[in-house]
């Protein structure tokens, strides 16, 4: 897994189109928090959730798709909000659509999926939250007293 600060910074800098598998339209769900936060920082989020795709309900202004393979545009990264046992087939789809990073959310750990993604040359992150890592490394988490691990004499970017 890519776990060090420089790799996480590269992933967050280069991968701007993020499909979120299991995204909820409920405002109080963690996946909605993450999607709304990422939109605020200029990322394009693409919802993937059969429940909302079936009714044609957009989430945060974006069309929701039933699966990764239905997305008509290139996807850089896939952020997974699903149970660990559901991640392996999702990882195969991530590879097949040409995405460059498999990201399993905080609390989601499927080591087989991680190994599969890395063998295919993808970046792979698990058991971390995209929003928390972005905020930790880009300064947003400083407000809340989080131990960011960032020591630097350069201005915050």
């Amino acid at each position, binding site marked *: 897994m890519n776990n*060090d*600060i*420089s*790799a996480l910074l590269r992933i967050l800098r280069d991968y701007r189109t993020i499909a979120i598998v299991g995204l909820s339209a409920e*405002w*109080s769900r*963690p996946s*909605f*928090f993450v999607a*709304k*936060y990422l939109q*605020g920082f200029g990322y394009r989020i693409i919802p993937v959730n059969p429940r909302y795709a079936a009714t044609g309900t957009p989430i945060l202004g974006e069309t929701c798709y039933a699966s990764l393979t239905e997305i008509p545009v290139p996807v850089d990264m896939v952020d997974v909000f699903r149970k660990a046992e559901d991640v392996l087939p999702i990882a195969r789809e991530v590879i097949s659509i040409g995405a460059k990073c498999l990201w399993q959310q*905080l*609390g989601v750990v499927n080591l087989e999926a991680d190994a599969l993604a890395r063998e295919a040359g993808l970046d792979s992150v698990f058991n971390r*939250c995209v929003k*928390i890592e972005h*905020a930790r490394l880009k*300064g*947003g*988490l*400083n*407000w*809340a*007293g*989080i*131990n*960011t*691990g*960032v*020591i*630097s*004499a*350069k*201005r*915050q*970017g």
Partner: protein
Amino acid sequence: MMDHIYRPETLTIHAGQIPDKATGARALPIYQTTSFVFDSADHAASLFNLQTFGNVYSRLSNPTVAALEERVAALEGGRAGLASASGMASEAMVLMTLLQQGDHVVAAGALYGGSVSLLAVNLAKMGITTTFVDARKPEAFAAAIQPSTRAVFAESLGNPSLTVMDIAAVADVAHAHGLPLVIDNTVPSPFLCNPIQFGADIVVHSATKYLAGHGTTLGGVIVESGKFPWGNGKFPGMTEPSAGYHGVKFFETFGDFAFCMRARMETLRVYGAALSPMAAWQILQGTETLHVRMERHCSNARKVAEFLKNHKRVAWVNYPGLAEHPDHALVQKQMRQVDGEPGASGLLAFGVKGGLQAGVRFIEAAQFMSHLANIGDTRTLIIHPASTTHRQLDEAQQVAAGVLPDMVRMSVGIEHIDDILWDIDQALERSA
């Protein structure tokens, strides 16, 4: 590539503060403002919903205060920190976030007096009960745990008892019952001891003491390890929708910093014991030199203890850094080495021959050692508990509280050791 691991001597100076985005200021700016503007109505809504991280109002968070929070969290090896107006306020933030009416606490018996009052009087008024046990007996903690127990509370190095607790042993007891271990780590400071390393789940500091060091400013900080399993069924306040913050499920949403977020948004926000930005800045001026000061406090205290041990006017000496102290093995295990010896911090207690009146005469004869109730100052501080802090108790009650009639408590400062020994010696001679 692994991230570089910074040492505490670097974290005391850098953690939590990188140059200001707007101005490039290298030193920490003081954001002396109550409130922060919203970019738009949508931005405001996202901030209140915690979907966007940012500052709203300085009772909840402030960038200068946050630098202190992150610095102490980094020094403790924890996940997140939360500051408040004093050490006692921080302790209250922890306990009032963890506990509700009908809950029970198991606490070490020889705690700082303010902590005893909070548990035995103030929380008792709210229907929260506490059983006090011997800090030296992990099995006593286990025996006192009830079905309603929700926290175990103790000090890493007791004040003024100077007992050292076996943190790992008590953490094992707490964790076997699904309970968090809360440790007051004020006396060692995060430079000498990191309770999280031995299994503590939440650490509390009075930053007024060694973290600040200058005796000018009150403050407190809590740190969470990020490792406690809040989803174990005993803490619905961490896992169920929050009645205090519009339905947020704190553990699910914030994971390993959920406790500090809940303490911030549910407890600090409502009780209002916020630390001012100016106070946080003053504390941090001291924290930058914590490592240098603690080394001197330890070496001076060791020399004072050795001097007292051999002084004809001294009946007994209690300093955990002495090999004959009953907890010396735990000091060696749990505390940082200073000059090849275990760093036992700067607090010690001793008996002046001649009892209560001799103790009073010693205090009054001091030339520059200050007679006051604080600890952890650069100055050497002395107090005679039997005639001051514990004078309302009779002698039997004082002894039960660990206060002997002849006992002097000393917080050894960082003045020149020869001057400290001179003042002690001349005051002892005049105590006869």
